[in-house]
Structures are given as structure tokens and as C-alpha cells.
């Protein structure tokens, strides 16, 4: 804290506080005059949008927790009570429920933007990894939140996902019993999921604080991927990006509100309005849409790998699927060391650009496969798409790093902006 270099504030109250704790100086430095590349496109809105969604989820979640009862006897009914009897309960719940989907929408756009423009490259590797950690925490939080209403999909989703851990050799079954706190998904499981579902968002906040702190050390990447060279290349964060982020956020909120008011159950499953019944399995268990690509990867591994000429299984199809699914996220952590092309932005990488769109298509395909039953053609398509997911990261990106000839980079952000304006 360099309180010696502080610029005094005119307001005496603010000044009194700032002398003792320079919060306002920090805000001014990080969000007021913070120099930000002047050429952001609308894809750069989604960090702010994701932060907004995190705040919405925590705010609505706290009020839902005041009405919710984490007990197998009461959970389903307490959610129905929120929907029917609690003042505005239906609104708070629909905002929370669809908020999870919208949060994932924002984060997916944010991640693909980072991949396309090389935002994960030096010196922003740790920034990227903190983001992937946030994503992982979000997945855990969303999964546990989906269990809380204790409908059929809640129960069977929890059963299938916790059963994944039984694939771990030797200790797998004990781990599953430990996760459950019993011998099946039951009351102890529901209670701990509620406790963790309340805790993890605050862990996410902590990781996001680190994510933003790291961002403010390196500064933002931008659509050219060329670092700002002079003050001509940047504008102060306020009012330029406070305004642009607010505009983007409002558009996003319009879409969000449309879903909440007109199609609040479009992304849910009707089965989850049937109370959980451990004796009857729904005919078709599917996770929420944002997990579908990973669900497809989980199911892509269909053969047991055995020691040749024996029937001793080294990696069962179940374990193989679990390894692939976690590998699909682990590979994201490694991305800064897989794509080492010195050119950040996909705009100046003619080959990378093609592979990026193929990769996006593969991810969407995986989502579509995950939604469908693992039979017939879906199995084959799922396996090809899963293979390509890993080929993209482990083979295509390193090869492009080596052999791709990028286009010439602009000398500076200003030059790129002018050239675009002249066209």
C-alpha cells in the first residue's frame, strides 16, 4: 500500500476512510483509470457478465436457503412450497435455476473467447488456470445444487455421478460409501450436498478474486493479441468499459429474463417434478445441458482394456470413461503449454482458425450425443468426437505451434484499429 502516493479525495468521509484503508484509491486505480486496450469486441463482455451471474446466484441462493429443508422427507415439498406459497418464491427459484444455465452460457463464451484469442498465453497462464479451477468448482456446485430439489432426476443423477468414483481401483467402493455417508444416496448425502452447495460459491468468489487480481497484473488481452505499446492503445476502464459492459449485460439480462418468464422449465427435465424414488429409475437419465459434452465423453469408452491374451482387466470401460472425463478438464489446465504459438490471436492464424471452429463444432456434437441414449450411431459419433477433442489439444495445437505460418501482426493496437477503419 503506497499510501504516500495517494491522491486526496474531495469528499471528507471518503477521504477519512481512504487515509486509513485505501479502498477508494484501489477502486479508482483498478476500475477507474485502469488502462484497458481500446479495441475490445463484445466477446470481452462475458467476464463481467459471469461475475454478475455469480452475484445473482449467491443472492437468490441465500433467500432460497431460508425456505429450503435439506431432508429427504421434506426437500421436495419445501421446494414446492417455495414455488406456491412463499412470496415471490417462484421468481427467486426460477431466477436461481435458470441462472445456473445462464452462468454456464457466460462462462462457456468466456472460455472459447480465451481459446480463440490466445488469452491463456504468457504471461496469463496462471490467470487461465484460475479460470479453469473456477469452472471445475462451478461444475461441482451446479451438480450438488441440482440434487437439492430431491426429484427423480436429482436422485438418479446423484446416484450415477457418485457411482463414477466406484471405478477407482481398490478404494473406489469405500470412497463412494464415504461420499454418500451410507450405502446409497440418502439423507446424509442430501445434507452434505446442501452444506457444500452453500460453501462452494464462496470458494468460487475467492478464486475469482485471484483471477481478477492476476488479470490486473498482466492487463487484459485484446482481439489483436498484441500488447498495448503506448497510452494511445488504451482507454481508461471507466467510463469506456463500464459503459460497454453495462450495455452487453443488459442485452444478456433481457435474454435471461425471457427464459425466466416465458420458458423457465425449458432447460429442466419433467422427471425432476416427480419426488425421488430409490426403487424406480427414470427411463432415461440425462444431466443438465451444460454437462452433456462431458457426459458424452464419459460414455465414449466402451471397451475393457485387458492384458493381451488374458482376461485380466487393466482399465475397465467404466474407469476409462471416468479418466477421459476428468482428462477433458485436466487438458484445459495444460492448454498454455500445448498451444505455444507466439501469435496469440486466432485472427492472424489461418490454420488455427479452421481448427478452432472444428473444435467448437465437436464440443456441440458431444453435447448432442450426450443428450441421446448411448445406442447405435450415437456411440460411434460420440467416440469420434471424443477422440477429436483430445486430438485437438494433444496433437493439433502442438503441431500448429510448430508448422503454422501466421499472418503479419499489426505494429500496434492503434494501427490495427486504423487499418480496419480504412477498409
Amino acid at each position, binding site marked *: 500500500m503506497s499510501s504516500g502516493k495517494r491522491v486526496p479525495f474531495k469528499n471528507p468521509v471518503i477521504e477519512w476512510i481512504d487515509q486509513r484503508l485505501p479502498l477508494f484509491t484501489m477502486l479508482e486505480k483498478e476500475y477507474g483509470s485502469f488502462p484497458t486496450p481500446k479495441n475490445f469486441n463484445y466477446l470481452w463482455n462475458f467476464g463481467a457478465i459471469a461475475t454478475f451471474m455469480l452475484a445473482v446466484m449467491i443472492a437468490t441462493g441465500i433467500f432460497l436457503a431460508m425456505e429450503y429443508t435439506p431432508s429427504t422427507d421434506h426437500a421436495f415439498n419445501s421446494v414446492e412450497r417455495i414455488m406456491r406459497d412463499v412470496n415471490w418464491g417462484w421468481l427467486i427459484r426460477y431466477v436461481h435455476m435458470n441462472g445456473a444455465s445462464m452462468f454456464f452460457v457466460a462462462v462457456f463464451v468466456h472460455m472459447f473467447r480465451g481459446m480463440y484469442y490466445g488469452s491463456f498465453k504468457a504471461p496469463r497462464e496462471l490467470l487461465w488456470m484460475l479460470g479453469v479451477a473456477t469452472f471445475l468448482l462451478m461444475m461441482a456446485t451446479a451438480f450438488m445444487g441440482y440434487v437439492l430439489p430431491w426429484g427423480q432426476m436429482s436422485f438418479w443423477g446423484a446416484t450415477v455421478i457418485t457411482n463414477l468414483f466406484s471405478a477407482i481401483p481398490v478404494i473406489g467402493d469405500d470412497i463412494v460409501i464415504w461420499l454418500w455417508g451410507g450405502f446409497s444416496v440418502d439423507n446424509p448425502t442430501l445434507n452434505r450436498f446442501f452444506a457444500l452447495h452453500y460453501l462452494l460459491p464462496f470458494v468460487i468468489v475467492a478464486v475469482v478474486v485471484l483471477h481478477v487480481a492476476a488479470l490486473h497484473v498482466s492487463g487484459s488481452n485484446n482481439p489483436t493479441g498484441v500488447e498495448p505499446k503506448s497510452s494511445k492503445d488504451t482507454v481508461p476502464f471507466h467510463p469506456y468499459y463500464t459503459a460497454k459492459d453495462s450495455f452487453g449485460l443488459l442485452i444478456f439480462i433481457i435474454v435471461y429474463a425471457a427464459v425466466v418468464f416465458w420458458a423457465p422449465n425449458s432447460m429442466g427435465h419433467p422427471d425432476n417434478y416427480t419426488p425421488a424414488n430409490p426403487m424406480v429409475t427414470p*427411463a432415461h*437419465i440425462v444431466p443438465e445441458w451444460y454437462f452433456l459434452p462431458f457426459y458424452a465423453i464419459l460414455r465414449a469408452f466402451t471397451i475393457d482394456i485387458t492384458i493381451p491374451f488374458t482376461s485380466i482387466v487393466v482399465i475397465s470401460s467404466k474407469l476409462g470413461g471416468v479418466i477421459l472425463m476428468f482428462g477433458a478438464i485436466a487438458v484445459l489446465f495444460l492448454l498454455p503449454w500445448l498451444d505455444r504459438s507466439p501469435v496469440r490471436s486466432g485472427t492472424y492464424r489461418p490454420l488455427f482458425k479452421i481448427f478452432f471452429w472444428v473444435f467448437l463444432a465437436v464440443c456441440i456434437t458431444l453435447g448432442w450425443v450426450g443428450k441421446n441414449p448411448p445406442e447405435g450411431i450415437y456411440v460411434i459419433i460420440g467416440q469420434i468426437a471424443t477422440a477429436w477433442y483430445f486430438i485437438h489439444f494433444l496433437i493439433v495445437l502442438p503441431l500448429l505451434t510448430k508448422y503454422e505460418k501466421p499472418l503479419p501482426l499489426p505494429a500496434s493496437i492503434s494501427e490495427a484499429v486504423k487499418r480496419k477503419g480504412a477498409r
Partner: protein
Amino acid sequence: MKPGMSDDECCGGGCHEPLVAKKECCGGDCGNCENCDCNKKSGKQGCGPDCKCARGAVDAERRDFLVLTAGAMGGVGAAAVAWPLIHSMNPAADVLALATTEVDLSQVKEGQSLTTVWRGKPVFIRHRTQKEIEEARAVAMGDLKDPQSDEDRVKQSKFNGQDMPQWLVMVGVCTHLGCVPLGQKPTDPHGDYDGWFCPCHGSQYDSSGRIRKGPAPTNLEVPPYQFTDATHIKIG
């Protein structure tokens, strides 16, 4: 150090020179002046305030030992504190107390099934017909994905030394992803092997509950159970 005295005067021009009454001259700060290597470390002469070695050289080995042993003790302590927290998440005494289920089978006629709950999971108890038993026993081991004889699967079904292979007892949870297979009711689909059919991903189990077709890796699990008399069974 006495006021007004320079470092050189104080320590006699350098640490390596033995000095009489050095403690007095340096105000007690000089310590083991004769052993020190302050010239190497700080490049300064004497025992002045800049000299890092006034208190003697660090015994690196001793310090490592202390750091490692203290760290190890701390680690053991942390683990000892963590264990009650971790173990609290394992099944509690009341959950374990419900770990056995007793069922009266006197009303289950031949060809009928009963589903009961054990440890929160469905358990299938089937009073098999002679035809089903024969079918199960006629299968060659080579045809099975998870080879196990029917005799082996019902070996716990006995009372007073008498085998009762008509009673098939299994956990009704598909070994693929945990769904509950169909086949307990006469109107349910039974698959191609006169047993159970899992609607989730199409696994088919035979009349001994062994996996015959579909993605499930193993046979339906047989829980530990025993007959307490000819018509009562205790599961778990």
C-alpha cells in the same frame, strides 16, 4: 559497542583476529567473533551493525533437522485433527444399525418376486420356478461375461443344511450405472434370458441375475444373507 568507537577500533580491525574482551567492546553483540566469516558474507570488516555474522555461523544441518522434524510433527497433528472430520462423513452408527433387513417370505409363491429395501437399495428376492433354475444351470460358463455358476450365486440359500436354490436374492441395481432393472412383475419385460432387463441402457440379466447382454460389466450383486428359518431371511 561503546559510543564514539569505530567498528575497526571495536573489533581490532577484523573478526578473524582474536581479541581480548571483545564482548565488552562490542556491547555483547560480537559473540563468536573468532569463528565468524563476516568478510565472506557481508564483505564488511568488523562487528558493526552491518556485519551479519555477529552471532556466529548458522548450523545448516541442525536447522534442516529442526525444520523437518517440526514439520513432520505438524503434519501428524494436522492429520489427527482431519481424521474425525473426514470420518464423520462415513456412515453413522444409526445408518449402520439399519444395515440389516429381515423379510418374511411365506407369502411369496413359486414364480413370484418380492422387492425389499436394504441399505436404501432395492433387493430382488425371487422364488424361482424349476424351469428358471434349469435354464440358469444349463448355461455354459464360456457364454458368460462374468462367469459364475448358478449354484455359487444361491449358495447362501439354505437352512439346516438343506439347499433352497429356488430363492434367488440380489441387489436390484444394474452394475452399469446404478439403474433399477425391470422384471420383478410378471408384466415387466424380462429380456431374452428369462430374467431382468434394465431400461436405461438395455442390459439383460438371466434367471440367475447374471449379465448376458448390454453394457453392464458384472452380474447383479448377491448380498450377504442367511435364512433364519425356512421362510424368513435376514439380509446384511
